[in-house]
């Protein structure tokens, strides 16, 4: 069921006023927690009513008492759910940049003085994670948020929800945390080799496979060739690493927006992104030219990040 637009607008205004955006830790206060019965809670109430009807019919005083005890339990479930969220501290860390179409993972840290069980975090329908927190400790969970568009992805309002302990009630709250992550354009799959398409200028070095000088390690990314994985290193580390090579005689390429014979801006960006990644992987030197921006020939992780950032924020600057 889709909510009408006016309702959604009002809701957003109300949410912004009630849950101000926090750049630091936000603490869930009592007036920021909402509780409503779940379907199971309604079924429970119906059961209690049936007990009550039986009590009236059979004139069983203790069955009256039991029905009322059930109502009391429902009420206690409400309080427990409320307290499972009350006073919870929420803060967010820096997320790693991602490519469009992937999930950005925001590290959400939950800090609590007491044990909290089965807290569900969500930012939109497709991103839900659950967490337990031990008393006087914190828990970091990675909240996935789909990166649909390149550019800055702002962390949406995070909903914290608890149906613990009884599932009779659903208690929830919102945390508006100031966090954003850069989303790079989606690299074009099966992009033509950049060696052929782009003009190799500025010194006209002979291109060679840059595998002679070992230059260092960088973190493995999906798509990297398996034969370049540093297996010895992998046995020691938690993550896989890729061996990188420095080849001073390697070719240099300039990737120019204007040279591409593609229709849309997005597909150009997509192609350029694919080339930047490929050239970085190959260890080639490369430069990037976009309308209004030119990045010099260089190589290495910092250059790669600079290029991808320029691609991600392209339209915003133009």
């Amino acid at each position, binding site marked *: 069921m889709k909510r009408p637009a006016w309702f959604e607008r009002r809701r957003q205004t109300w949410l912004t006023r009630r849950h101000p955006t926090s750049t630091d*830790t936000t*603490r869930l206060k*009592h007036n920021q927690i909402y509780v409503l019965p779940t379907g*199971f809670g309604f*079924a*429970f109430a119906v*059961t*209690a009513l*049936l*007990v009550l*009807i*039986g*009590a*009236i*019919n*059979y*004139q*069983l*005083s*203790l*069955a*009256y*008492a*039991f*029905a*009322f*005890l*059930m*109502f*009391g*339990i429902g*009420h*206690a*479930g409400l*309080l*427990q759910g409320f*307290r499972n969220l*009350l*006073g919870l*501290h929420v803060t967010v860390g820096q997320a790693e940049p991602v490519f469009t179409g992937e999930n950005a993972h925001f590290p959400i840290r939950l*800090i*609590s*003085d*007491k044990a909290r*069980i*089965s807290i569900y975090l969500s930012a939109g329908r497709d991103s839900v994670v*659950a967490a*337990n927190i031990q008393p*006087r400790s*914190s828990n970091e969970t990675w909240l996935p948020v789909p990166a649909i568009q390149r550019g800055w992805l702002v962390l949406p309002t995070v909903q914290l929800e608890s*149906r*613990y*302990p*009884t*599932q009779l009630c659903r208690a929830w709250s919102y945390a508006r945390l100031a966090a954003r992550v850069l989303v790079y354009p989606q690299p074009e799959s099966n992009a033509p080799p950049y060696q052929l398409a782009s003009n190799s200028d500025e010194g006209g070095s002979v291109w060679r496979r840059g595998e002679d000088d070992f230059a260092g390690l960088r973190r493995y990314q999906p798509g990297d060739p398996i034969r370049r994985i540093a297996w010895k290193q992998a046995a020691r580390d938690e993550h896989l690493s890729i061996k990188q090579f420095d080849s001073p005689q390697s070719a240099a390429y300039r990737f120019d927006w204007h040279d591409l014979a593609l229709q849309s801006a997005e597909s150009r960006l997509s192609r350029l992104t694919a080339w930047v990644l490929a050239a970085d992987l190959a260890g080639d030197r490369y430069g990037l030219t976009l309308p209004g921006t030119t990045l010099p020939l260089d190589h290495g992780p910092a250059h790669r990040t600079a290029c991808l950032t320029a691609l991600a924020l392209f339209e915003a600057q133009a």
Partner: protein
Amino acid sequence: MRTTHRRDDLPRQPLYGLVAALALVLLPHLTQLALWHAALILLPLAWRAWLAWRGKALPPRWLRLVCAAGLMLIVFVQFRTLIGRDGGVVLLASLVSAKLLETANRRDARILSLLAYFTTGAAFLVSQSFWMLAYTIVCTLVITAQLHGWQRLDGKLPWTEYRRAGWMLLEALPVALLLFVIFPRLSGPLWQMPADKPGASSGLSDRMSPGSFTDLALDDSVAFRVDFEGKPPSKSSLYWRGPVYERFDGRNWEQAFGTTTTPTYEAIGPTYNYTVTLEPHNRSWLLGLDLPTPGKTLSGVRITSRLQAVSEQVVTQRKRVTLSSVLTWKMADDNPALQQNLLQNQMLPRLGNPRARALAEGWRNLSPNARLAAALTFLGSGKFTYTLDAPLLLGPDPVDTLLFQTREGFCEHYASAFVYLMRAAGVPARVVGGYLGGEFNDNYLIVRQTDAHAWAEVWLPGLGWQRVDPTAVVAPGRVTQGIAHSVRGAERLPLLLQENAAWLAAARLRWDAVVYGWDRWVIGYDTQRQLQLFGQLGIDDFSSPRFIGWLSGTLLALLLLYWAILNAQRSRKTQDAARQQWSRWLRMLAKQGLVPSASEGPRDFAQRVARHLPANALAAHAIGAAYIATRYADRPEALAELRRHVSAFRPG
């Protein structure tokens, strides 16, 4: 073919919790069944637990259906119905048990939990004792705790969940109490379920055979309890009048049911008002002192033409009735319609008991009063023994055998023989069953089955029906002192009635007072009690300002209580821990001569420490900041930092 095996995705620990909860919940209902039936109902529970333990798949659908249908069939065969109170409850128990076999996901488990709650509520159909309430609270705790297990991410059911469930019950208590007190009580059933067969019950029956009261004397369960308004009558006049037996077949006495005219009577002496709390006996008669009068009697109670107080409905639940009685009276015999009844009360079987008949025939010339006196003199001659070990009177002439051979009998034997003599002598007479005496426990009277008694009523000209107790002349102590003092064979009586068990009897009386209070204020909390309680609080009407005041006051008090609890719980532990670390640090500094002054806050003091101990300046600032963050900024995560800095602090 589609496979009907259901994979079992349920975590084991909560599942075991669910099985345990169901077993607990079913137990009160299973006690009402034959052992084999109870075992059959428990079987699916054990099976399901075993499947989970071995990690096996659930049984195929046809087997589950066979299981459920089989259990239902057994219920139908046993009860001849699937609805109604008893059959319905056993059906519910069977379905709960069968449902567990197909419980394969958390949703099923939750639905089953709801059924478990309902079945727990139904346990009060079995009993409404204090113990049953305690037991159902345990059941509720276990059901609620396993419900928590289904919510956990780790699939475990640690003991802390039972503690949490306990807390929830404590939190539920004020709400439950408030609702219990103020929820309006309806005074009649909403609908009538199909009549349930009355179970076997002890107590008087509508037929009196030789030996039937002897059996009752051995049963010390409570028959009813009485509260008197004002001073109760003396113990020897506490004849609780029950069924009136008028038809005699030579051996057994039975009630006659044809209606006759109610004799008009004139009360002499005071009227006693009292409330009888009757244990269920599955009969319609009530027990009132003779003679019950319409006085304060409520609706639903009727006085029959045989001067019996009866309820309009069979008493299947503990029942409280208010009755009025007079102890002495005079009846007019001018009503010709009554003669028919009086003639019936002189009838005897044509044959049998020649000697008794001959004895009574000899009194025919005397006045009715003199005939009565003669019969009592005969019984009071000292030749008769009042005993629980009366021989069986099996011959064709039981009255003759009793009066002239064995001379040993219990109250029903003497009442029967006496009425036989009176009828043979031409005096209208009948047997009355009921209870005699009782035991005062502070301000109320307990009457037990042991006090069951049979006596006679004879019609005397000018006086009407008058009570005559032949047992009183055989064993005068029975009326004045109770059964244990007067009967031979008293060692067969229940232990607590025997004279040498005084302390036990005292303890039992105290316990009975608790039970009776429970019955009056908890079980018997009905419209009447509710109005009485509200009346004591000064509330006469639900819409009165006073009631609204009480209600809102109570609700407000509850809310304030919750608020206080919430506030007290909020990070108090962290703050205490922070203060502890701070004090530890202060103790270290006190050795260096650094003590915070009264006007110095933590920040100022930390700065002073930093100036005095330059080597520790950084640590001092960090401790001050962490302490402030924990205590005042409500940032519990700073506690660990505070602890680390204090532990690492080395002044100097």
